[in-house]
Every structure is written in C-alpha cells, then in structure tokens.
C-alpha cells in the first residue's frame, strides 16, 4: 500500500485529501502511479494528465517522473507552490 495525498486545487477537484492505494504491479515510479490515477477518468484525468500543472513529492521530497515508488511510500500530488 502507498499513501497518496492531494493538496490545494487538487484536493478540492478530486474531493479527497488522502487515500490508501494498493500499488498495481506494473507501477514502479511516479509516472506510472500518475498514469494509473489518470486511468480513473473524470476529474482524475482532468487534474493529473497535464504534468505542467501538477507537482509531486515522494516521502516529502520533491520528485520527478522517474522517481521510484515503493510499497509504504507517501506520495503527494499538488499544484505548483505559491507560498511567501
């Protein structure tokens, strides 16, 4: 299982802040996990398909498409940050 967190615009559009997900065997990295979520269609496809509108972290470190995702990881998807 992985914990997947959603923040800000994504949290609102997807209607969830977090979920526990059984990793499909084919998923080895962030790109694969994102593709699996896009496959749900609807708001998931709309919010997660365009990668330039979405950032991600694995275990609380900024991550890129080829960052490995393993059982027990905490993955987060969110819009580009706007603090300060």
């Amino acid at each position, binding site marked *: 299982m992985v914990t997947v967190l959603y923040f800000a615009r994504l949290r609102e559009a997807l209607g969830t802040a977090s979920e526990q997900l059984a990793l499909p065997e084919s998923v080895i990295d962030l790109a694969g996990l994102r593709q699996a979520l896009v496959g749900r269609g609807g708001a998931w496809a709309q919010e997660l398909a365009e990668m330039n509108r979405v950032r991600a972290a694995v275990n609380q470190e900024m991550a890129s498409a080829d960052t490995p995702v393993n059982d027990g990881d905490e993955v987060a998807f969110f819009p580009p940050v*706007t603090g300060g």
Partner: protein
Amino acid sequence: MTVRIQTEDFDVGAETAAMRKDNPSIGAIASFVGVVRDMNEGDAVSEMTLEHYPRMTERSIEQIIGQARARWNVIDALVVHRVGVLKPTDQIVLVVIASAHRGDAFAACEFVMDYLKTQAPFWKKERTRQGSRWVDARGADDVAAERWQLKGR
C-alpha cells in the same frame, strides 16, 4: 536555525532581539517580511487562506537554509511562515539571517526567500468579489530562484 509554521502573528523586533542575545559574533541581521496585499492580478483581495503540507514544509525550508549556510556565512537563521486565514496588511512570512557581515546576511536572506517561493509546499487561495480562487504560481518567481544558480559565490 529555526523553522516555525504557525497561525499566530510574529514580532520581528522580538525575534531579532532573541537571535542576537548572547551571540556577540553576530555583526549583521537581515530580515524580510512578506505581507498580504489588497490587490492581485487586478482584482481586490479581501482575504486569503494559506494551506501547507505539514512536515514536508519544515523539511524543505530546513534544506533551503542548509544550502544558504553552504554558500554564505550564516550564524543563525529563522523562518516563520503563517498558515490559515489572513487579511490585507497581515504579515505572512518572516526570514531572518544573522551573519558576521551584512553582505552575507543580505544575500542569504534573499536566497532563502526566493527558494521558499518556488520549493516550499504552501498554496494560497484568495477571496475576491468574483469568489474564491487558487493563486497560480508565477514564472517571475522561478526566474528569481534560478538566478542564484548563475551567480558566483
């Protein structure tokens, strides 16, 4: 080195006084305060709500301070970032850097702020007359952070 995420306001004078107390090696303190503006993208903003990713926020700011310490003489550093509901004229963020000399304090303070804008997981939602909207990231902030990669030490 201290990083605090809080809903409460902060007092710049009290924070800098606490930093220089008992530390006579400090010769310069640079501070930056970010404040909520009443206008954004041409619309009046009545209120804004700041959301963050707990733990990752603190970690990412600690890493940014670590990078600043590797480049400049930094005796002490403090970042305070508020979350929750804020109104125009409210303080949002405080960066304080103490160094032996002003050059390091100014540079490290600006570096930490520029990197915080593009790396630390905070998101702003603002309320205007048209309703609430998430603030989009600005390309200008990426440019501000990237220029530190070009500058010599």
